[in-house]
């Protein structure tokens, strides 16, 4: 992919329930490197499935999907790809409750050649970036929703990924915290030239992106 596209999807099909449900129905999509794209659509439209497939959390039944130079339909073990190229931010932050904030941020670094001290230093730096360095020893349950989502952003940045995938990152937050999270993500996109792909059903949130893609019944609406 030397045409500047970081994501290239052709005729992507994903079925569930023994083929009875077509979650993705022949999607073609190209996303440029450093682009901020929002994917909108109602519940069950296939937007999260599409995001999961870009992040190699799910596999395609048909079609091709290339992300950051990797053919995701060919590779069997995609853990290295997920670890090094992708940073996930989920709606419900998905932090591990019995680990400290610092430990949660270090999790993606395991198996990437970091020494323990390096992992701690990097995690502290990332927590400083999301303005939570003073809460590194706390457990996620002791933080507010907005703070937890900021920890999730720090965790997503742990291995300096080139693509951030955010699935409804503000979905469980109030408008003030939601706005703050979006500002952080936008800053990240602008300052670090990170490709940001965000799923949302909120049109106001989607309007912050460079481009908006609408998914309905597993197909992109043009």
């Amino acid at each position, binding site marked *: 992919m030397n045409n500047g596209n970081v994501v290239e999807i052709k005729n992507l099909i994903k079925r569930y329930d023994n083929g009875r449900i077509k979650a993705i129905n022949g999607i073609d999509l190209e996303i440029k490197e450093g682009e901020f794209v929002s994917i909108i659509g109602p519940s069950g439209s296939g937007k999260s499935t599409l995001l*999961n497939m870009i992040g190699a959390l799910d596999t395609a039944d048909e079609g091709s999907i290339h992300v950051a130079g990797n053919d995701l339909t060919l590779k069997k*073990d995609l*853990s*290295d*790809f*997920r*670890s090094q190229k992708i940073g996930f931010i989920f709606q419900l932050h*998905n*932090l591990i409750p019995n680990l400290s904030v610092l430990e949660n941020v270090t999790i993606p670094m395991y*198996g990437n050649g970091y020494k323990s001290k390096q992992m701690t230093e990097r995690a502290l730096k990332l927590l400083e970036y999301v303005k939570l360095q003073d809460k590194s020893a706390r457990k996620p349950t002791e933080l507010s929703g907005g703070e937890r989502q900021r920890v999730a952003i720090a965790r997503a940045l742990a291995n300096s990924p080139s693509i951030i995938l955010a699935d409804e990152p503000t979905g469980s937050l109030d408008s003030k915290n939601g706005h703050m999270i979006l500002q952080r993500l936008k800053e990240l996109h602008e300052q670090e030239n990170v490709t940001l792909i965000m799923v949302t059903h909120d049109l106001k949130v989607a309007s912050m992106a460079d481009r908006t893609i609408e998914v309905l019944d597993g197909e992109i609406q043009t």
Partner: protein
Amino acid sequence: MDENEGKVHFIYVKINNGADLNAVSQSVQNAYPGELTTIASLEDYQRANGGLEMVETASTAISLLAIVIGGIGIINTMIMSVFERTREIGVLKAVGWKSRRILGMILGESIVLTLLAGIVGIVLGIIGIEAIIRLSDTAMVLSFTPSLALKALGIAVIVGIIGGIYPAIRASRLPPTEALRYE
């Protein structure tokens, strides 16, 4: 009994012709009160030996039963742990953890759990033996040796591996999207 290898279990005493067997036996017992028992006939010896063999067989059977029950307990505990942490495993996969790292994590937890249980068991065993010795006036000497403790820890590790392998494989093969959807 084999744990007492190198120690004296039996002393054979040959008495002179015409000597009173019961009197000699009684005087030996009187000389070492509470430390040894005397057996004065072949029948008594065979009875005592048969009793000891039975105790040894029963002890082995109880140990095997404990190992099997412990193994089932570990499988159950680790399966429950994997179930409860399905979403966590999904997160680990989403951030790029390899299946073998997740397998190692679950297996490691299982081994640590059984090792800790083994240590607690050894401590309780020592306390139990001490209590039996103090509370009973048996002439039988109960002992607990370091090699027995090591054997117990070795068995604990093996039980940990066997009991943890299935839940660990199950966890490592969880599809990330399914694991993340788990409530």
